């Protein structure tokens, strides 16, 4: 129970740090006014490592934070991030998480879908049809930057997850 609490707390801290850093530090690290989508990396990684349920709860929390501060419609980003966590959780179960290639590919795919969906729902519906511009100036640069960040961040999340898992296994052993 105590360990579960610890895991929940660590996950919440991850999301909070991601959100805060994205709005402050990464504002300064933006390349050509493009910043990486830190929260998506965190949500997809946790989904991938921990399964669908934790993925979608983390995604919901992350999306809700964005909604409260920047979203027009409460629940809009929450839905996006929740689905990201869920889908990555479903896919994660069928692959080994040891290699870096597959999870990063999933994160990249999530980021790509996210970019295209935001364009479709927030821009195309306002009759801004210059998709090639948005594609080449926002979606692709954000994708590349996010992949770079994922390459650094995913191993960190995996390491912390691994530490927690061994701790949990050890305490399970005590009872048995």
């Amino acid at each position: 129970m105590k360990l579960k609490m610890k895991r929940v707390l660590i996950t919440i801290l991850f999301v909070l740090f991601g959100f805060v850093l994205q709005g402050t530090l990464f504002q300064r690290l933006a390349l050509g006014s493009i910043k990486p989508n830190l929260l998506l990396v965190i949500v997809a990684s946790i989904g991938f490592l921990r399964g669908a349920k934790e993925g979608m709860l983390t995604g919901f929390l992350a999306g809700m934070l964005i909604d409260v501060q920047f979203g027009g419609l409460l629940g809009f980003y929450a839905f996006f991030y929740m689905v990201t966590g869920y889908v990555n959780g479903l896919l994660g179960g069928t692959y080994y998480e040891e290699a870096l290639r597959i999870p990063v590919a999933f994160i990249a795919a999530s980021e790509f879908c996210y970019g295209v969906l935001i364009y479709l729902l927030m821009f195309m519906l306002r009759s801004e049809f210059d998709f090639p511009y948005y594609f080449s100036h926002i979606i692709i640069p954000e994708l590349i930057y996010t992949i770079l960040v994922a390459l650094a961040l995913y191993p960190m999340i995996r390491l912390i997850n691994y530490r927690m898992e061994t701790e949990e296994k050890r305490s399970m052993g005590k009872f048995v």
Partner: protein
Amino acid sequence: MSKHSNSLKNKYWFGGLCMLCAALMLLSFFAEQVGGPFKIVASFTVIPMQQGVNQVGIWLHEFSENFKTMKSVQAENEKLQEELDMLMAENSALQQEKYELERLRELYKLDMNYAEYEKIGAHVIGCDSGNWFSMFTIDKGSLDGVRVDMNVIAGNGLVGIVTETGPTWATVRSVIDDSSNVSAMVLSTSDRCIVNGDLTLINDGKLSFEQMENNDNTVVIGDQVVTSHISDKYLQGILIGYIREVSVDSNNLTRSGYITPAVDFKNLQEVLVITETKEDVKNKTNANENVN
């Protein structure tokens, strides 16, 4: 067996959360108060962290700055700069006010005397988490008297408008945001136009304007563009920027072009919030008319 029931459980969780999201979207579409409790949670968790990170950032910045200049000089400079910004804002506001007043008196025999707006200063503590919109949060909220629809300026130009407030924070949508439209006019000719933020122009540091009447008035490059008197949300006569390009549209009825904003949106650190909304001003003038 257990794996199967687990995935079934997950599906229920997923469905439930989907429904929750949909319900929240519907609710917040029809009633604006839904976000209230969440906003208060945000002001206990994220906002202090953002302020903290910013303080660390500012501290580091100052630390590195100290290698170059004496601390006292820097402090003095900062103070003077602040004063200068305030004075510049005041000066341009006064000049515009005077200009407006003269013209209005001349033309309409109206002695509209809009008092100098009350302002409060605020720090920018966080920016939008995505790349699609240009919003930012400031460290003053409803407890400091900030309300939705208040205009935000920096130096001597319009920055944006408050779209959401929490107890200790507020979200500002800048005029360069893709969903921002401001009713404006050219100061020299009084021709009205609509100033649009545009994501495709942000990196060029431009704003676009359109729907300016194609009449005999010549608009030259460098003309000041200010908020117009017919705007519902923006107070009259706040400088938006300077005309950069102007061309006649293919319909020959309207003109459009680009504006260089008066504010440097890349390096926005301190802003001033005008604690008077257009609504207040309108009510005030209505009350005055009733008295007369």
